[in-house]
């Protein structure tokens, strides 16, 4: 029904495409058959070295998190086991990287740093992806309703999102965790609660443009209900946008989890999370002579954030070629990606500027 760009994935055509690459290369005509927008995006993405390396790292990280028990079993050290004889020297100094079978060394309690980082990746991904998924669901739903119906519904929902956006996220997270006590579920809910308006704003903006388009009018003329139009005609056009901003929101949420855990408001020790590993290391003095159990969790966190940001940025270019950047060299790509990094990240900035824009729109009579 909908004519919008990214759906209309024709299964039949996709099969043709997947038949045989050599045959396709020989028969040029067939190359034009069945290139769905998703497939085109994938082809563009594949050329982007930075994004592909980042994707590789993300896949690796996900596998590590999934097979954490297996990996730690292979290493032979549980994440919370304290190796007081093998893992600490006689004077209680942690064992360095590569010594006594501890690949990344041990921490001040004689625990294996690598095993803890592996288990910490589970927490980071669970919270990062879980909170983002929740935010995506709520944000898309509310943005869709606000943008589609407009009028007073939009005013109320829009104002509500504005107010949430002007809240200091970290402070309120502190407040809520302080009242209800820290837990993984609460952490996910709190982070999602403050990140959905970013998605909501963006979706709303898109829907306002889409609802006036001919294919929506056509659907309405055919007698489709509002619900049907929203779900089957408008929503599919939002997928690309949602995927891009979800990818850029994940690292923001991962950092937020780590920050809350660092402040003692997130994951509680002895359960390993990168944030509380850094916090625990910093409470003692031993890290000054045994840098590894402070520095390795930091590296894990920074690399993960970096990978998601670079991948999200590449994804945006691949899915939204109209931004017209054409072919960029690797150096330029890395450079441009710099914009997407910051802790509030470009997601927040984009949402902010859309707040301003809507503000200006509203002022217009």
């Amino acid at each position, binding site marked *: 029904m909908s004519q919008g760009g990214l759906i209309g994935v024709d299964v039949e055509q996709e099969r043709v495409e997947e038949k045989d690459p050599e045959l396709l290369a020989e028969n040029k005509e067939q190359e034009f058959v069945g290139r769905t927008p998703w497939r085109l995006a994938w082809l563009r993405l594949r050329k982007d070295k930075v994004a592909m390396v980042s994707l590789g790292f993300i896949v690796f990280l996900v596998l590590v998190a999934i097979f954490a028990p297996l990996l730690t079993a292979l290493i032979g050290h549980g994440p919370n086991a304290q190796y007081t004889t093998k893992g600490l020297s006689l004077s209680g100094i942690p064992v360095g990287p590569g010594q006594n079978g501890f690949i990344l060394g041990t921490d001040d309690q004689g625990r294996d740093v690598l095993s803890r980082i592996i288990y910490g990746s589970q927490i980071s991904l669970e919270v990062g992806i879980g909170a983002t998924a929740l935010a995506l669901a709520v944000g898309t739903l509310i943005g869709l309703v606000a943008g589609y119906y407009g009028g007073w519904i939009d005013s109320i929902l829009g104002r509500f999102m504005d107010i949430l956006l*002007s809240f*200091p996220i970290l402070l309120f997270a*502190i407040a*809520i965790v302080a009242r209800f006590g820290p837990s993984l579920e609460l952490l996910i809910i709190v982070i999602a609660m403050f990140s959905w308006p970013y998605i909501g704003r963006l979706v709303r903006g898109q829907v306002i443009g889409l609802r006036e388009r001919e294919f929506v009018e056509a659907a309405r003329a055919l007698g489709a209900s509002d619900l049907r139009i929203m779900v089957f005609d408008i929503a599919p056009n939002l997928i690309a946008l949602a995927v891009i901003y979800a990818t850029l929101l994940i690292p923001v949420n991962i950092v937020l989890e780590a920050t809350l855990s*660092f402040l003692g408001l997130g994951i509680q020790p002895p359960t390993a999370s990168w944030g509380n590993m850094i916090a625990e290391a910093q409470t003692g003095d031993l890290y000054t002579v045994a840098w590894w159990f402070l520095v390795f969790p930091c590296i894990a966190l920074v690399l993960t954030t*970096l990978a998601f940001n670079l991948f999200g940025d590449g994804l945006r270019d691949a899915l939204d070629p109209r931004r017209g950047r054409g072919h960029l060299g690797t150096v330029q790509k890395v450079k441009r990606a710099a*914009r997407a*990094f910051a802790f509030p990240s470009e997601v927040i900035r984009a949402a902010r500027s859309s707040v301003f824009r809507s503000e200006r729109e509203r*002022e217009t009579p």
Partner: protein
Amino acid sequence: MIRLVARRLVYLVLVLIVITFLTYVVFFVGNPNDLAARFAGRDAGPAQIRDAAVRLGLNHGFWYQYWHYLVGLLHGSFGLDFQNQVPINSEIARAFPVTASLVVGSVVIWLLIGIPIGIMSATHPRTLRDRAGTTFALTFLSMPTFVLGVLFLLVFYYYLTRAGLSWFPAAGYVGITTSPGQWFLHLILPWLTLALVQAAIYTRLIRGSLLDVLGEDYIRTARAKGLSRRTVIYKHGVRAALTPVVTQLGIDVGTLLAGAFVTERVFGLPGLGQLALNAIGAADLPVVAAVVVLAASFIVIMNTIVDIVYALLDPRVRLA
């Protein structure tokens, strides 16, 4: 213009009410006996708990209590804390200068770093200097504040001191009135921690903004009438390019304050963030609530000021 300002002010009041309301709901709604027991302390008997409930006004309805809280706030009072039953205002008054020193100092540093590097990148695009600026931005942009903080402390304090170069003092805070020199020394690392992440963002922001401005026709006109390159860039270019930066500065206050709280934790500075986090440890809810309300209000007020300044600077918003 007046309409716009009035509208923003009404909105400001609305947001402030929502903030206090949500804070109040999060912190004080729930089992009143529980709250009273916390207020009365650990060894309190039932009579004392009842007494505490009356003192806290818990025997009244919810709206009455919220109204009471709001009136207290409007009179500039955050109430008593649970631990020592002293006015929270005095605790905040003690912590505020620390957070203020941290925030103001780091804003100065980040602008001092961000603006020159941004201008350099924009005036020499695609050169080695631009690339160096980008590398700088990339390095610090991907670091969460606390990671940068702990690494700074490790390298610049512990490693340097062990190497015999005790340039930086240990974590902690010395009041500016006690010893301005020590105050400065103790704050250098926290300032840099907070400033570098933001400076990196501003480098990119200024670079982009200045590149846009330098592409404008009036810049070419200025060059054509024979002004020196320096005059064109600094007098005509940078001045126009800084407008979006100023707006961004106001918007970033929220991030900055959150970052300041994290930095305080890393460097053991007894500011508002530490106050709140310690209060959480002691389950001292009114103190946490006070800090949250204070910081949130500050951010919202700054955002409103930015909106109004934005309208003043950009006639398109004002005239629309």
